């Protein structure tokens, strides 16, 4: 096989591409430059400005979004890399005017002041709280450690996340007691 034949059909490097991705449950397709970061795609192309940009090199954590359910820095991923994936941003947390339990806990526990870092904290903590077993205080601190808050509100943030974790633990305990009374055949735990 000649080199020309070997090269036939081989895809070439491109400067722009059509991206298809699900953002907050909605399919979107856009033509984008390959050098466009996911953060800039969300903000400038989709108008989802809830995702903030601080340092733009992966240190501050405010641009954190969920990529297929896992928190990642959207400034360190190119939009084209999310082809076929699910992206979740802070806009997806509240249902209309009703805040998510975590957002409500942030309000209740004074977990934000200027609010610039908040979207990132919310996304990381949301993933942590949805990862099955409610997290320990140590696990909460480890994950929050990936974010900077310059209003120095860390304690309030940790308290808010721990409060939701506690609610989840208590909620998990209650139905189990009820289930214990039910016939064993229906007990799937």
């Amino acid at each position: 096989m000649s080199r020309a034949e070997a090269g036939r059909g081989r895809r070439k490097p491109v400067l722009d591409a059509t991206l298809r991705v699900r953002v907050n449950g909605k399919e979107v397709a856009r033509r984008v430059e390959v050098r466009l970061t996911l953060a800039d795609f969300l903000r400038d192309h989709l108008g989802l400005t809830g995702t903030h940009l601080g340092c733009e090199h992966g240190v501050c954590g405010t641009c954190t979004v969920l990529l297929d359910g896992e928190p990642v820095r959207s400034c360190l991923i190119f939009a084209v890399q999310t082809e076929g994936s699910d992206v979740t941003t802070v806009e997806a947390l509240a249902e209309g005017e009703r805040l998510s339990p975590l957002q409500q806990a942030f309000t209740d526990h004074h977990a934000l002041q200027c609010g610039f870092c908040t979207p990132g904290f919310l996304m990381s903590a949301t993933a942590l709280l949805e990862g099955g077993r409610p997290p320990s205080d140590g696990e909460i601190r480890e994950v929050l450690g990936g974010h900077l808050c310059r209003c120095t509100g860390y304690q309030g943030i940790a308290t808010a996340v721990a409060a939701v974790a506690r609610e989840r633990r208590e909620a998990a305990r209650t139905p189990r007691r009820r289930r214990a009374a039910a016939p064993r055949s229906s007990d799937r735990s």
Partner: protein
Amino acid sequence: MKPAPFKYLAPRGLKEAVGALREFGSEAKVLAGGQSLVPLLAMRLARPSVLVDLNRLRALSFVRRSSEEVTIGAMTRQREAERHRVVASKVPLLGEALRQIGHPQIRNRGTVGGSMAHADPSAELPAAASVLGASFLLVSERGERVVGCEEFFAGYLATALEPDELLAEIRFPVPPPGTGWAFCEVARRHGDFALVGVAVLLLPDGSGGCAGARVALTGVGAGPVRIPEAEAALSEARPGDGGGCAAAAVEAASIVRGAIDPPSDIHATSDYRRQLAGVLVERAVVQAAKRAGIHR
């Protein structure tokens, strides 16, 4: 803070990937997790004309175990490796090193191979690879080759990888049962690169003593640094030396302080790093000895 324009290719298979590297290797950068490369692009410290993105190569994401080795695919996410039960049970030192990298949000994306190929002088994984005696499978259209740490880590941000070569997997020999291990580091903030990191393996001789030792450091040279003199001192520690392994740890620390010539930068002076290296060696040896049941 926007990358300069580049062309992008995301191969679907290893063959296409090495083909792309043969064609564009000298002007291309390989994109793995992107947690180091994308900041370099954003700050325009790197301006490759082509990016070859390996994130579609599912075949390079795995943790496999044989009787003698744990093999990790280069594109395995650090978070996945750190949570893998084979890593926890067979090469726990590697698991500990992984947990010290950045933050969970970084490790969700960062890859085991990416960290090795980037070869940052303060990175955790090269020191872990060095102390465990890992080897690296490099693949190109010309064929495959396997190189050890001494050859792979070739200096400051440099590896043995040729422009047309790809790091496909990293093979970690499984230490003998009962081996003591420790990975200790100090960073200015949790999640930062280490000012100094120390990895220690201690092999028990079966009667409460030490049959062999390995010591590797990060943050004190151009790449991971092994200290054979400290390893020899630890292996030769005998009962009656006074103080048992605590005394051996102090001696190893003193040898390490004398053997290294760490850099000064905005994060720490050379003297501070040298002092820190000693403290961490002592700490790591004591911790490893405890885990190995070495008491004399």
